[in-house]
């Protein structure tokens, strides 16, 4: 099944007939089998699926972190497939932001320094107005001088979100951003992500296995066995859960 997109919305990221194979010979495993998907600009898309469905692999391939075996991936105007290391580096600097399950903040830097790290790596100055907006949105103004170890999990993840946002990337990829958080902190982070899409037109692609988290998205696509099997627009936690249940059953049978 192919995820569709309205013609009026331009795609921020696109996967076209993407295959990803690991290993060779008898040990060969197909993580992705001909996935074609578009992620619209200014929308919040969740990728769901049972573990082993290939949802993380799809995200890694979309973000240029992993190479694809067949097919092409593009972000904005840039074709990711076939880019060399310097091209990929430039892509990550200019077009892509990441939010990780483990937060991945540098323990030695303060919150502010962590947030500004991508810009300083690229040798750019932050846009002060945008920086202020980001800081106010994540609500960390009084925590900027703290080290990650002095922050709660939710605060750390908000620092990570601010880090991804501050460079205004084409797409932010979030890998289970609430996986390590309690439900309240998780909700805060998800609200914040949704707001950045609604208010600032940010594009976010989030991998999750939590139906509640997925319900914050504008659209959910479901993967199973390396293929897109279903899609929900304007999901709620219940509809997502139902879809998941339906997906699980044939998978059980298939085994």
């Amino acid at each position, binding site marked *: 099944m192919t995820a569709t997109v309205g013609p009026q919305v331009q795609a921020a990221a696109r996967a076209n007939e993407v295959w990803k194979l690991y290993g060779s010979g008898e040990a060969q495993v197909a993580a992705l089998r001909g996935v074609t998907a578009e992620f619209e600009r200014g929308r919040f898309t969740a990728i769901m699926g049972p573990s082993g469905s290939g949802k993380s692999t799809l995200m890694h391939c979309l973000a240029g972190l992993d190479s694809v075996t067949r097919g092409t991936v593009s972000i904005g105007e840039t074709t990711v497939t076939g880019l060399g290391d310097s091209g990929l*580096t430039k892509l*990550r600097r200019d077009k892509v*932001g990441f939010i990780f399950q*483990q937060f991945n903040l540098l323990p*030695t830097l303060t919150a502010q*320094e962590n947030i500004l790290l991508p810009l300083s*790596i690229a040798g750019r100055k932050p846009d002060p107005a945008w920086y202020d907006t980001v800081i106010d949105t994540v609500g960390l103004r009084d925590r900027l001088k703290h080290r990650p170890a002095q922050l709660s999990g939710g605060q750390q993840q908000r620092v990570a979100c601010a880090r991804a946002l501050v460079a205004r990337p084409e797409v932010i990829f979030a890998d289970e951003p609430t996986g390590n958080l309690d439900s309240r902190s998780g909700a805060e982070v998800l609200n914040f992500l949704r707001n950045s899409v609604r208010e600032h037109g940010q594009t976010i692609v989030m991998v999750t296995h939590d139906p509640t988290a997925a319900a914050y998205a504008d659209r959910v696509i479901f993967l199973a066995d390396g293929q897109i099997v279903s899609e929900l627009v304007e999901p709620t936690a219940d509809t997502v859960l139902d879809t998941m249940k339906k997906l699980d059953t044939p998978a059980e049978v298939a085994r």
Partner: protein
Amino acid sequence: MFRATWKSLLARKVRLLLSGLAVVLGVMFVSGAFVLTDTLGRSFDAVFADGYSNIDVIVSAKPKVELSEAEGEQVAAPVPASVVDQVKAKVPGATDVTGLVNADGARLIGSNGKVVTSFGPPQLGENWVGENDLIQLRDGSREPRADDEIVINQALADAAKVKVGDRVGVLTLEPKKEFTIVGVFGYSGGRDSMGGVNEVVFTTPVAQRLMLGKPDTFSSVSVQAADGVSAERLRDDVSAALGAGYEVKTGEQAAADQAASLKEALSFFNKVLLGFAAVALLVGTFLILNTFSIIVAQRTRELALMRAIGASGRQIIGSVVLEAIAVGLIASVLGLAAGIGVGALLAYLFGKLAGGLSLAGLGVPPAAVIGAFGVGLVITVVAALLPALRASRIPPIAAMQDVATPDRPLTKVTVAGGIVTAIGAVLLFLGLDGHAGDNTLATILGGVLFAFIGVALLTPLISRPVVSLLGALFSWSVPGKLGRLNSGRNPRRTAITAAALMVGIALVTGVTVILDSAKGSISKLAADTIKAELVISGAQSGPRPPSFDPAVLEKAAAIPGVQLVDGEYGDMGTVNGTRTWVAASSNVAALQRIFGAKATAGDISRLGPDQMLFSSDTAKSRNVSVGSQVTVQLSRGEARTYTVSGIYESSELTNPVLLPPQAAADFAIPQPIQGFVQLAPGAKVADVQPRVETLLADSPEVSVADRDAFIKQQTSQLDTPLRMIQILLALAIVIAVLGIINTLALSVLERTRELGLLRAIGLRRAQTMRMITVEAVVISIFGALLGVAVGTGLGAAVVRALKDEGITDLILPWGQMGVFLVLAAIIGVIAAVLPAVRAARINVLGAIAHD
């Protein structure tokens, strides 16, 4: 990016400091060497400048044989007394023209009956020319007036424990003579000696006879300028008045020239210290390489994150290299500071040893600073390059998942190791086999370096079987088994750590093999060859060999039971214009009868006063055969022509050329320096030895020993350099120990979770510590084994190459090797202490929750 690098560096400062310590030690050696030589150099400058401070112009004759400081004291050619009158008569600007006697070799016998020795500064015999600004008699002293009166400097009086009024013996060109000390003098500023020089001052005629061997001659003539005449002007006038054949210098020039020749000897010392610094730095390189590798491995996730948020590979390399630069800089600063301290300490000790050299202010020459920073930075950055490259290859995806680092195959590194080792072996072969010509030393050193790096690269491969074999010794307990498995877990890391230890131990083993083999070979040759039951000789402490009264030779020959006595004289002279060690024998027959020499041409059993003998090697290289006319210039006297009357087969114990005994009168030391006594069949050593001993009563520098004792004494001269080298190389081993501590500490940190788990399931603290200790001991014994093996190989190669030089037997110091292995085990235990304590203290709960 810079800030991130800087902060992450600060967060790991202890770890980096530990690796930086290796650089600190190396840099300390480099800068210490420069500081030491600079300080001593300036001190000598000051001594000589002082010594010539009251002399405007000095006239001397060209020495007959010019020697460098390392070859021994040069003998100045005598200046006839008539020069004094000539200058007085012909040079109007000259006032106060004084003839000076000033020669090495005045040895005072102290109150304990032993000769006061010197470790380097000359023991001057001089003529008294009165007090001046520099030289002042102390209270209760007067000048020498009679032939048997002397004055001596305060430092010598102290060393000999003698005072004004004492009768003392002095050895000079002539055998012991007795004198009364009538005065003791010191120098301006209340100093007791000038740079540790001992001075015995006679009346002028006595000094001429005893120190120069010729009446009415001087070593030099000093001339003072009249008012309004510059020293340069006076120099030119004196030079013009005397004509060619004399060296006329201003006092300043003479001081600078003398200091320069001493400094040449110091620069050799400097090079030796730099050599040891190089070894320390090589070992340090391994240590830094390892530390940075481990740190990069531990920071995989962090570095991957940097990549994921847009850092380029080059930026990652830059960040690791920047860290290296910071470590290098800090280590260089610390090393420089420590080096200045060490240099000052060594200079102080040197001054003491040299008999109270008053040191110039401590100086830090630019070479020390440039050397410190250059070496410190380059070494650290070079060592960090490989880890930096590896860091840049970390995929960004590693930030998201635990990428299992695959056990990289060792093929590449093994092939590289094989190639590098082969290059090292080829270079060694070329160097040792004499194919490298002028670059022999560089080729050999390059070969050793390549061999070390090559073996280090091969070490991961070797480590697998050897480490598991070694570990089997400890596998009887669970902690032992775990420790053994841990040490085999990361072959590269284990290998580099062990390789660092290997370098130090290999060098010590190699040097020991070479020197032991040399000792053994020489002893064997001497025992096989020398057919003299008793030997007269003394231990040499300074540049001048001990000597004895030639009358002893004749008296010894008259002792019943003595069959043959031979006294050996030696001098550095020129033969057909080439500098050569020349010898003379009081009894040419000894060449065949004591030393077993065989004639290859002519007759070597006798020697006329105008004849000389050549060894076969020297004859060949100088293109000389029986009947050739050869010109020989000795330290004293004029050049003479000898006819070659015979050629003897060369061996390690034969001299290059042999002159008739009459020639010895013109030697720098016209007294025998060794004596060989052959007994008649049936005569007992115990009967003859005491009688020879009695004869030597007035020659306290030497003693008589039986042949075995003599051989032992001769070969034991190699023990001192061996000890010195071992002590200096111990530094390299200390650095390697730091490496083991570092590797273990980092491994413990890396395995926090695992250690916590082991503790959680019941491993006791003591068991945890034992586990870490076993790992350390296995690594260090492995390193020592490698070192002993490589060192034996290198040593054996050198010994083989020196076969023609007379080192025929390869002697392996098994005992020493055993000591190294035991030492390595102890080192391992010591190195494990801190990491083990740390591991044992791990908070179990915290460790399991540790992310």
